């Protein structure tokens, strides 16, 4: 089995998916082009910008540095799935309230990356939030509003507020 094309079966946002993929196709291109899930964005295509961030078997990864063919048997969650389940509804609301997005290109990756930090519980310092988000570029906001939103959600969750 050293061929270029491979059949893969995986779970994307809870739905079973079977497709035949070219080995060179990245996970993010597969999600966007083959499955029509265009919430994950393609920015730099070499792992620097974070716009393609998705979850693979529960942990965030770069969608541009993982091949679709490697995801045979895996569970992939994208911004569409995480939005639908309501898992990050509070974080999305905080981004909107605090103007933590302008063009929105980085936002799906930013949300998934922030949710990883928030899921640990507790209230991280602003420095910890900045460090955690350092692999996700935003060219609009200057980051302050994003850090504000993540910090506000961390406090709200820690206090049990909705």
């Amino acid at each position, binding site marked *: 089995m050293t*061929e*270029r094309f491979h059949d893969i079966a995986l779970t994307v946002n809870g739905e079973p998916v079977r497709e035949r993929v070219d080995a060179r196709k990245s996970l993010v291109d597969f999600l966007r082009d083959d499955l029509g899930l265009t919430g994950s964005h393609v920015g730099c295509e070499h792992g620097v910008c*974070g716009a393609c961030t998705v979850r693979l078997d529960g942990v965030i990864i770069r969608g541009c540095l993982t091949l679709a063919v490697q995801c045979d048997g895996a569970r992939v969650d994208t911004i569409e799935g995480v939005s639908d389940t309501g898992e990050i509804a509070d974080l999305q609301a905080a981004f909107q309230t605090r103007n933590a997005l302008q063009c929105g290109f980085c936002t799906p990756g930013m949300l998934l990356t922030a949710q990883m*930090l928030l899921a640990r519980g507790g209230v991280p310092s602003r420095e910890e939030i900045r460090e955690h988000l*350092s692999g996700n570029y935003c060219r609009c906001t200057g980051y302050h509003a994003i850090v504000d939103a993540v910090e506000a959600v961390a406090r709200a969750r820690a206090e049990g507020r909705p």
Partner: protein
Amino acid sequence: MKPAPFGYAKAKSLDHAIALLAEHADCRLLAGGQSLMATLNMRLSAPALLIDINALDDLGRISLDGDTLEIGALVRHAGAERSPEISRHAPLIALALPHIAHPAIRNRGTIGGSIAFADPAAELPACLLALGGEVAITNATGTRRVAADDFFTGLFETALGTGDILTAIHLPAARADSRYGFAELARRHGDYALVGLAASARAEGKHLKDVRLAFFGIDATPVRAHGAEAALERGEDAVAALARDLEPDGDIQVSAAAKRHLAGVLLGRVAKQLGEPRQLGEPRP
């Protein structure tokens, strides 16, 4: 950009991977892929076949054998960060890990991949050198160990040859008298270092011995600073000695003169760390 077309094979065992390597001349091993995929996407490399070794669970273990800590090549950065064994027995690695890239990359990137790729500005190759560790390599004819001092041979070049797989690194486990230091300067948290320094030593009374200083981001490989090491052991001015050890190349971000200055600044910080007893940290959540 998109990578040039390639074939893909998922190795089912180490023997299978070695057989695939022997059969296909123009191939690359795919572990975490966090450097390889970027080079393929930029078409700096265009192999005919990728051999995916991610299913080789035997390469994902961390174990203590006597006074040596073995870290399997497929241990991911995130797994290493959470490892109590690494915190306890290889605190220098634990100090370096938070500086490496970003959470999404640490979830995927592997220890073995970082060593094998041998980026001259990367943290782990310098840590391996500072610890005087060894690299375990397997191929069709057998297994061998290569000392860190002999492993990094040039820019992105190592002792790994055709048909070789890096299976693990072996590090001397920390002792009560072990001392470690780590510092780096980067423009953005998680970026490759402009200049960095990993160091180990042993404390003997108020003195240090067996000092190993490994600078990264300075030359084509991580480099020892033998003059500064000897100066630290004698209690002399190590920063002055450093001037004769390093011949930094300037790059697009920093001139050679600035790198030389920054290396001295980092040495000052790391020398201070080496003088202090080790604080055993807990792994990050």
